[in-house]
């Protein structure tokens, strides 16, 4: 259940970067989740659905790539001004 606090962190990072790039609407976030972490992609997706708010659009999607290792990265995001 720590996925909720992780999604808060992800949203804050994207919000900040979106402001820097002048994007007011974000519709996709690509996340990398290391296999060795105790992070459940399904729980991330669930938390993401419930914590969506501007600049994330209501239909924004979270794409998750599971990789070996212990990384947890927001690799990129897509949006528009």
């Amino acid at each position, binding site marked *: *259940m*720590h996925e909720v*606090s*992780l999604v808060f*962190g*992800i949203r804050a*990072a*994207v919000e900040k*970067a*979106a402001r820097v*790039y002048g*994007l007011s609407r974000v519709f996709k976030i690509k996340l990398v989740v290391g296999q*060795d*972490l*105790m*992070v459940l992609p399904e729980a991330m997706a669930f938390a993401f659905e419930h914590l969506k708010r501007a600049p994330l659009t209501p239909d924004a999607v979270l794409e998750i790539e599971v990789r070996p290792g212990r*990384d*947890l*990265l*927001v*690799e*990129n*995001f*897509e*949006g*528009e*001004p």
Partner: protein
Amino acid sequence: MKVKLGYPVLQANQAIADRNREAFQRHFLLVLNLMSSPGAGKTTFLERWIRLAEDRLRLGVIEGDVATTLDAERIAACGTEVVQINTHGACHLDAGMIARTLGHFDLARLDCLVIENVGNLVCPADFDLGETLRVTLLSTTEGADKPEKYPAAFRHADAVLLTKTDLLPYVPFDLTRFHGTLSRLNPDAPVFQICALTGEGMEQWTQWLLSRRER
């Protein structure tokens, strides 16, 4: 527009953990992060161990629980300095919570700070607190299959304590399987068989800990 970010999500916690670790090292403080599922016997182990170790190490304890100060009261009854953190629902301690409690201790006057994490064999494993050693406990009543089922808590442990060993004659705990799994997952971590009620294994554990302190 696509923005490449590469933002490490756990970095915020890691940065605080690194600062905690620096503070601990400045004071030559050995810091333990105790992890296990609820009821494995972390607090009972501590109560017994404090009595054995208090003339050799000046101890402080941070208790992490979702609610109540029950554990802190038990540790305070041993005469040990203790701070209780209530996470109000969160399933783990993070480095920021530890940083905020450090002001309650005079670190220069302590040799060893024990952090008893929230009882949970899953989430605490991902959060560095700045500890010197990660210690994972498993009790004999939980079953020998748990290191296979919850590998992260055991793979990154510096030591593993098997608790409630006085119950071994009465529960079907497969010691061979347990040790076999640990030697595959984490061959470097010593395993101590501990009984808080009889004191079994406490002296070996203490000797190992003291040897780590001298490094």
